[in-house]
């Protein structure tokens, strides 16, 4: 990669038509930046995530760890009978396990999201274009060494023909 070409749009529909054209031309899009989530972009960019699966596993982990802890504390560590209930008091434990399942699921999913997206407090954002978080939709295409100047010109014209208000090379 020897640089990046940015196509800037101010309308979601124009952005999508440009993305579809680029996809038809088999041009590799490195990233699309938008001020709000656009579902058509996710489809074109074929975005996938295993976050829901991770959450499920975190929830299972939460239930198992909580139950093991409750069993150890109530049956092994200090077996004291409260109100005639059995030491391994499953109905009460279900409730605690349920709450802890949510605790583990939510907390660890948020951590997983930040780790996977490489976001952390104080991270210096790489601002590709100033209005990205306001009203600009940006298509980023990596310039590769094998691209000729003609290819780049053609790319620029595709972006402009589909309504780009600005095409930048960085």
């Amino acid at each position: 990669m020897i640089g990046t070409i940015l196509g800037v749009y101010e309308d979601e529909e124009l952005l999508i038509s440009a993305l579809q054209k680029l996809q038809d031309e088999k041009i590799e899009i490195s990233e699309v930046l938008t001020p709000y989530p656009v579902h058509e972009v996710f489809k074109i960019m074929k975005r996938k995530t295993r976050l829901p699966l991770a959450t499920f596993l975190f929830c299972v982990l939460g239930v198992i760890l909580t139950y093991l802890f409750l069993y150890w504390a109530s049956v092994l560590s200090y077996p004291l009978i409260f109100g005639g209930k059995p030491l391994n008091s499953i109905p009460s434990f279900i409730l605690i396990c349920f709450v802890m399942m949510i605790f583990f699921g939510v907390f660890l999913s948020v951590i997983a999201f930040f780790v996977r997206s490489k976001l952390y407090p104080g991270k210096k954002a790489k601002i590709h274009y100033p209005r990205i978080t306001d009203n600009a939709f940006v298509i980023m295409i990596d310039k590769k060494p094998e691209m000729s100047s003609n290819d780049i010109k053609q790319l620029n014209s595709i972006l402009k023909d589909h309504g780009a208000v600005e095409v930048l090379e960085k």
Partner: protein
Amino acid sequence: MYNTAIRGPLIKGDKTIHQITEEICQPIDRRPGYWWYFVFLLCLGALIYGGWAVYITVHEGIGTWGLNNSVTWGWCIINFVWWIGIGHAGTAFSIFLLVLEQKWRTSINRAAELMTVVAVICAVHFPILHIGRLWDGFFILPYPNTRGPLWLNFNSPLFWDVLAICTYFMASSLFWYVGMIPDLATIRDRTTSKIKRAIYGFLCFGWIGSSRDWFRYEKLSWIIGGLTAALVVSVHSIVAMDFATSVLPGWHTTIFPPYFVVGAILSGFAMVLTLMIIIRKVYKLNDYITDSHLNAICKILVFISLIMGTAYSTELFMAWYSNNEYEMFTFFHNRVTGEYNTAFWIMLISNAILPQLFWFKKIRKKLAIVFIISLCINIGMWFERYVIVITSLTKDYFPSNWADYRPTTVEVGLFTGTFGFFVLCILLFFKYLPMISLYEVKGVSKYKSN
């Protein structure tokens, strides 16, 4: 604008995306008006009163409260349950409406989520102070200790309550904060002040809005939403079980968990309505918080209020139908009639009867009346908790135990303090953070009305 057949445009005025950013961020840019400083000072006054009450409680003990051997739970528990109920608003709005794909939530959810977080903080003050010996508060946490080791009673709803509220606070705070990250990045990018850019830049975690991040972000919102929606039901059910697992007449009923959950949602929605009417008026956000939004909340209130009315009637019916003299006494001689009947009737009229006026479109369109009814519901819900806690405790099975209860200035101070804290947090939030979710509103403004 996003235009639905039922509700019409969600945002008025055919605004551009940039215009939305500018209009919603306006309160952050400009100096607040005199009213802001006036309310700020009032809140500080309330906080000082509350601080004094906390000092007296910690220094001298809960003997300074109006409690006695019979009424061992007073204002503190009433206020705890009331605040927790309000704390359900954010989740009810943001999460239930997110899961149900209700686009109209976008203008309201941010303020409602803030209400949740602050209301839960207000609520937890009360049980913590009720411990009396605050320095021994950590005894409630399950950890290996040198006292045996003596573990907690895991069968107790009081322990479940600690766990559920901590989890609820964690989940709702994360939902609120994560939901704000893209908007914090917007403020970072538009501010001209270096200090502000550094602060908002730190808080927004380096967000740039790439499609990869947005995709994961949306999934995460659904995950937190889906899990926390289940938690809403369990938190208030557990709060209800604090009462229902006792043997006192008026408390020992199986209707309590659903009754408490619905009550919480009623008070939460009413508080959202109160707040939204004020925000709309003060910050001139009529294009974002439209009549249609308020209309929708009113319709939901009618429905929830009907459930509340059914719950109140069921309680009375079961007391009569069971032919249990203690239940009959509590409900008919200590609530419907008797010393505390005023509180009972305020509760009934405010929560079950007044919201029925929202059946009429004319009433729903008159914001002054809507505002008054929403305030009445808030007051009515406080009285509901008052009726439940006080009437059952003052007169239990044993007439020699019967005692009266009057709150002291210390208890009033604690409540006033939390109220000051609540309003203060809201004021500061509106000054420094976007009160309406920018990216979500932009998302629903993508379709042209024509």
